């Protein structure tokens, strides 16, 4: 309990610190008092109000939502497949999205369509979403093979990722310079891509994912002990596996479609939580990983904006750079504790 109090206190202060810095720092800097006055009364400084409400705040919220949703997706995948390497990346979902986006950019062009409430959605977003869904359906298909192990499923994911990578490269080979640049830039992952509607949608999906894991939390607590244990305790293994893969895929698909590929958040956040809290229930692991993932991406995005200011580096590049050493550090810690 003491560790939990410390963890949430540090995380809250960190989040507040990042929020304050995100609002203040940028191409145009203002004093704290001007920023807070404008936040409370937008008429006092219209250009600053626009900067805050249309650029900085949405981007900050996007960072939190995307980080939270990717971390939740990664935590679900790691638990259901009982494999610490499981993530949207290792299962080929991100590569599927990249293929879908490249296909839209190179073959379909940059048209827009309207679906229901959503007007003028870029075909790139639709393509990326469908790409992630198709690759997740392939993973799902493999998961239905009787007696396939979680390791087998990860290997299937690696093969699917390689296939989509090859298909994307083929498309890019036949593209024009402009198309190639757009397709490559899309894969970088950038949080300024989305606006309020997209952010809201990501939050709604995140909420849906959280409800799912809270309802099925005890099934997750059980299945990590192995399929025989879980089955003897009454867990419907196949239904849990299929629903979990489906939910994790949808979570990744929505975030990737709107904001591009942002790696390592989904892999790292659950690992950090499991390192700090050794014997916690899955309800907690999912929630804490998600919040940590959100705050991690907020911090990464702030760094991405400031590190080469005035140039803003795509956050996907930064998460990979910070994520790799962090992941290796966690791995070494786990090995030293005799748990890999």
């Amino acid at each position, binding site marked *: 309990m003491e560790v939990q109090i410390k963890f949430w206190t540090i995380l809250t202060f960190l989040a507040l610190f990042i929020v304050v810095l995100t609002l203040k720092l940028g191409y145009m800097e203002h004093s704290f008092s001007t920023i807070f006055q404008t936040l409370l009364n937008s008429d006092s400084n219209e250009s600053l109000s626009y900067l805050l409400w249309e650029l900085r705040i949405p981007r900050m919220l996007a960072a939190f939502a995307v980080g939270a949703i990717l971390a939740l997706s990664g935590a679900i995948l790691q638990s259901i497949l009982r494999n610490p390497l499981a993530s949207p990346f290792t299962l080929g979902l991100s590569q599927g999205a990249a293929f879908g986006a490249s296909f839209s950019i190179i073959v379909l062009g940059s048209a827009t369509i309207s679906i229901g409430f959503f007007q003028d959605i870029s075909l790139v977003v639709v393509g990326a979403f469908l790409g992630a869904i198709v690759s997740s359906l392939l993973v799902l298909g493999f998961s239905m093979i009787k007696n396939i192990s979680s390791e087998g499923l990860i290997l299937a994911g690696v093969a699917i990722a390689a296939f989509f990578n090859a298909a994307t490269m083929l498309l890019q080979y036949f593209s024009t310079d402009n198309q190639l640049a757009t397709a490559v830039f899309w894969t970088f992952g950038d949080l300024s891509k989305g606006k309020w509607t997209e952010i809201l949608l990501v939050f709604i999906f995140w909420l849906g994912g959280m409800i799912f894991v809270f309802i099925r939390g005890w099934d997750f607590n059980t299945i990590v002990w192995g399929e*025989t*244990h879980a089955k003897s*305790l*009454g867990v419907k293994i196949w239904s849990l596996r299929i629903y979990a893969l489906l939910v994790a895929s949808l979570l990744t698909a929505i975030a990737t479609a709107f904001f591009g590929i942002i790696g390592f958040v989904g892999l790292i956040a659950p690992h950090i939580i*499991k390192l700090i809290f050794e014997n916690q229930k899955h309800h907690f692991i999912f929630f804490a990983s998600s919040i940590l993932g959100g705050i991690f991406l907020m911090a990464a995005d702030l760094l991405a904006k400031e590190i080469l200011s005035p140039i803003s580096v795509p956050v996907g590049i930064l998460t990979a750079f910070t994520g790799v050493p962090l992941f290796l550090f966690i791995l070494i810690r786990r090995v030293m504790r005799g748990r890999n």
Partner: protein
Amino acid sequence: MVETDSVNFILKNKQILKDITIQAQNGETIAIIGPNGAGKTTFLKMLRAFLSLTSGNIYIVNKLLEEYDNKELSKLIAYLPQTTKAVACSVEDCILLGRKPHIKYFPSAEDYKKIHQIMEELHLTKFQGKNVLNLSGGELQKVLIARSLVQESNILFLDEPINHLDIKNQLEIMDVTKEMTLQRDLVTFIVLHDLNLAFKYADKILLLQNGHNKFYGNKENLTEDILSNSYGVKINLINFNGVQKVIY
């Protein structure tokens, strides 16, 4: 009550179990013994419906096994597999998993009451908040037995629960299992390699060899010849203070 009627199991043209017919009543402890590869674990898995039998019938509490769904069976049968790779969680949460068949979304106060009761009975309360990964082999096995007992099933299947444990822990786990079987009127099937423990604790013995039922019945009727033939080594039985002792 557990009953099997001419149970056969064929896998890839190989007869794994042949014509096994047994009957076990409540309050009885049945030791399943036999050489390696005799089909002991397969038989238990079949009784728990983890494997589908090729022919024959299995009755659990007077109803055909296939008429139950997995959820119903999880309330009727607690099954502890041969190997368990422990997962980081507290002893309390680990035992709480035994209530899983009765939990819809979240455990109730009643569930917590029951796990605290079993922890007290098995002297596990002092480990309550401890990570199961930091327990010794014997302690972990006791926690897993507690988890099986808190499931409140009528039938208990334990597959080699005392492997790799020292003598003190072996006896402790067998004592607890026997006591609970009598106290709760359970039917307990326990796969054992130690024949002395089988004779000490079981009421009935099922001896399997190459999937064949070499003996099933009260332990008093199991002879040296049947044992020697099944294991392929000379086995002697001597009576020591009313309990059969095995010498080889």
